[in-house]
């Protein structure tokens, strides 16, 4: 039954309750979602590369393009980023980091991953049914109720993935609270563990709101209720309020574990203590949890909301910069007096620091109500959230795969191909999104397959499309590298990056069932980030 040595058995993988295998299943599912959604991104970029219909059928106009957009957004966020960070990374690494043998409820964990795969299958039906959903990942009514597209598919996908996420949240919170190695205090936990705890608290509080909102959508469309229909006394903006009440905190569900991964990699690869650990945890992570529920209206700045709430939430949204700023200082400060070892994961992590600056700071004008009036719904927004949520978070997932590759496979990831993939990716994303920032400020609207009123933007779209293909090449190299290294990579030493964290110091690579050969206890002066002697 050893996961390390016994031969491959499909049955063992399907019915597994081992958190490491479940983590790998999440990784496979989320990378599959990423690949398909990435192909949609290429179609989107090709379509926009020239004026007029480029590859869409001219007779159906935007319909095809709208389905690509829907799938790209929904699959990237719900099928890749959230499951990649809170499914794959949390499952595989969190129990190891706290010295636990598994999660608190292994069977519920198995249920989570299969609900997730159910959600992915539902999302894939987009390409099979004759009336694919075309409601974007936001699903705003009344459009989502009037459309001939299959809104139910969207709703059920959200239900399944949301349910999986709530189960995961309960599971991991209980695991962290009750299953830490004896002696491990709250201030001795890895920052990735803290980031997962705070992210799952956000999920637990806010996912039910999203589930309720999309359920009301379902009732309005198929059962004849009028929650969102103003002609029958409903409220046309209610859905948007409920949706963003979840979906803005959802970006922190992505951001927090992404930052947690960065802390692990940067601290390990600089062999340095995290700078001001407590400020990062209590000021940064908990600060975000505290404010995350009071900022959703910045998604509705141009929706005719009352002035007092548009101004009030401008202030609360700007204040997010305080906890995020503290996390930034801890993250950048960890480099100070470090000894930087340039592993492939560290390349991604350092790249992320710069992506974080661009993505974070371009959020500030969007937080300001009046500046957002011009910028919202333009490709400036689109470039902003791709930098901070899309690329930044995706890079942390890739960094995590590289950093813990020896842990998962017992082999070292190929460094040359890894670095080639990294450089293609980071150059590609800048080539793609800087032109979009620029034309966004000049007024390029989002979700346009054609832009005949803005012919002057065509060259910028061409450059952006070129960038997307550079990223595609980078990702092809990256995924190929993972496959080759997993099969025939050089055998790894037990602790190749010389980390001080429990998953490297106390358990073999890859870990067998039960993770740790001997029960782990930690002393009061133990800390995952102590490297120096002073």
């Amino acid at each position, binding site marked *: 039954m050893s996961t390390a040595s016994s031969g491959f058995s499909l049955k063992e993988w399907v019915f597994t309750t081992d958190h490491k295998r479940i983590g790998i299943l999440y990784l496979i599912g989320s990378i599959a979602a990423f690949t398909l959604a990435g192909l949609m991104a290429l179609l989107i970029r090709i379509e926009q590369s020239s004026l007029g219909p480029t590859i869409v059928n001219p007779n159906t106009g*935007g319909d095809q393009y709208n389905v690509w957009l829907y799938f790209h957004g929904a699959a990237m966020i719900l099928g890749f980023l959230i499951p990649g960070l809170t499914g794959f990374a949390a499952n595989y690494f969190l129990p190891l980091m706290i010295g636990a043998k598994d999660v608190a409820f292994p069977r519920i964990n198995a249920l989570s991953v299969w609900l997730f795969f159910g959600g992915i299958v539902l999302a894939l039906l987009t390409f099979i049914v004759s009336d694919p959903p075309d409601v974007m990942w936001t699903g705003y009514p009344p459009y989502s109720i009037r459309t001939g597209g299959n809104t139910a598919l969207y709703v059920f996908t959200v239900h399944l993935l949301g349910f999986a996420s709530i189960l995961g949240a309960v599971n991991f919170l209980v695991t962290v609270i009750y299953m830490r190695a004896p002696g491990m205090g709250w201030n001795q936990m890895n920052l990735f563990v803290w980031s997962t705890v705070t992210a799952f608290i956000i999920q637990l509080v806010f996912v039910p709101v999203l589930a309720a909102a999309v359920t009301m959508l379902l009732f309005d469309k198929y059962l004849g209720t009028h929650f969102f229909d103003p002609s029958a006394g409903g409220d046309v903006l209610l859905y948007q309020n409920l949706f963003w009440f979840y979906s803005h905190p959802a970006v922190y569900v992505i951001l927090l574990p992404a930052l947690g991964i960065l802390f692990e990699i940067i601290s390990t690869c600089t062999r340095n203590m995290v700078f001001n650990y407590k400020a990062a945890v209590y000021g940064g992570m908990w600060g975000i949890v505290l404010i995350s529920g009071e900022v959703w209206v910045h998604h509705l700045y141009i929706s005719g909301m009352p002035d007092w709430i548009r101004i009030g939430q401008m202030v609360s949204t700007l204040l997010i910069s305080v906890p995020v700023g503290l996390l930034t200082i801890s993250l950048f400060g960890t480099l100070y*007096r470090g000894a930087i070892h340039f592993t492939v994961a560290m390349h991604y992590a350092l790249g992320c620091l710069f992506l974080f600056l661009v993505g974070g700071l371009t959020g500030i004008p969007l937080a300001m109500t009046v500046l957002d009036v011009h910028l919202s719904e333009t490709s400036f927004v689109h470039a902003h959230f791709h930098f901070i949520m899309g690329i930044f978070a995706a890079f942390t997932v890739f960094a995590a795969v590289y950093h813990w590759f020896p842990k998962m496979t017992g082999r070292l990831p190929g460094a040359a191909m890894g670095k080639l993939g990294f450089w293609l990716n980071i150059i590609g994303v800048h080539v793609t999104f800087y032109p979009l920032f620029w034309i966004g400020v000049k007024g390029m609207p989002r979700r346009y397959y054609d832009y005949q009123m803005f012919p002057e933007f065509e060259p910028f779209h061409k450059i952006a499309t070129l960038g997307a293909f550079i990223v595609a090449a980078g990702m092809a190299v990256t995924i190929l590298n993972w496959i080759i290294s997993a099969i025939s990579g050089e055998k790894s030493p037990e602790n190749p990056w010389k980390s001080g964290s429990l998953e490297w110091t106390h358990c073999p690579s890859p870990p067998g069932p039960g993770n740790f050969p001997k029960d782990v206890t930690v002393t009061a002066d133990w800390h995952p980030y102590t490297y120096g002697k*002073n």
Partner: protein
Amino acid sequence: MKKAFGLPIGLGALLLAQAAQAAEVAGKVVDPAKEWDHLWHELLIDIGIMGGIFAVLAAYWIYKYQAKSPDDIGTAPRSLSRAQMWAWAMVPAFIFMADDFFLAAKGWTVWNIYRTVPPNALEVKVTASMWNWEFEYADGTKSTYYVDAKEGDGLVVPAGRPVVLRMTSLDVIHSFGLVKHRLKEDVMPGRITYIWFLPKEPEKTFVTCVEYCGTNHANMYAPVVAVPPAEFEQWLKKKANKA
């Protein structure tokens, strides 16, 4: 409990004071688009400085603190003293907060200009539907634009006079986007929203739909034309007679 109510009341009073001030500024009819551009440039400086400091520091440290050997370890202190810990949390927190409030105050001032319609503004009703813009003037005259046939006048307004749009939708949510005037507001069924703009000189621009509304979302646009006032009166008369 008193304290809990004090805050919103204080904020409310501030809001009123700001609104009154904005109305005064608007008395001279300030062009909101110009104010927007000004604020945007200030903001770029603000985030440029902040981003620049972090980026340069990170680049320098990445260069300076490269490991000398595979076993090299960092030399930062294991832990900060209590005073250092608090200082490194509170000082940056207050700097960020100060910048937030500074930006919020600046943004609020321009926002009030955006929301305070000058008294002599021309009123036009806007009705959006999938996928068309229709404009109705005070005398009931209607104007529209047919994208496929490229026919119709769209929104015609007199140059030099503020224009206020009262907008609603017949079906789904659309959004009135007027890039030239840095303006955008959703147009919804069952609600009326408003925006105003100031076409100082005769100009030819266009409105695009900027809230996703299905198949022809990308083609939902109409010309917005400002003409000399006399020409506008003529146009309106001709249009009314035709109807």
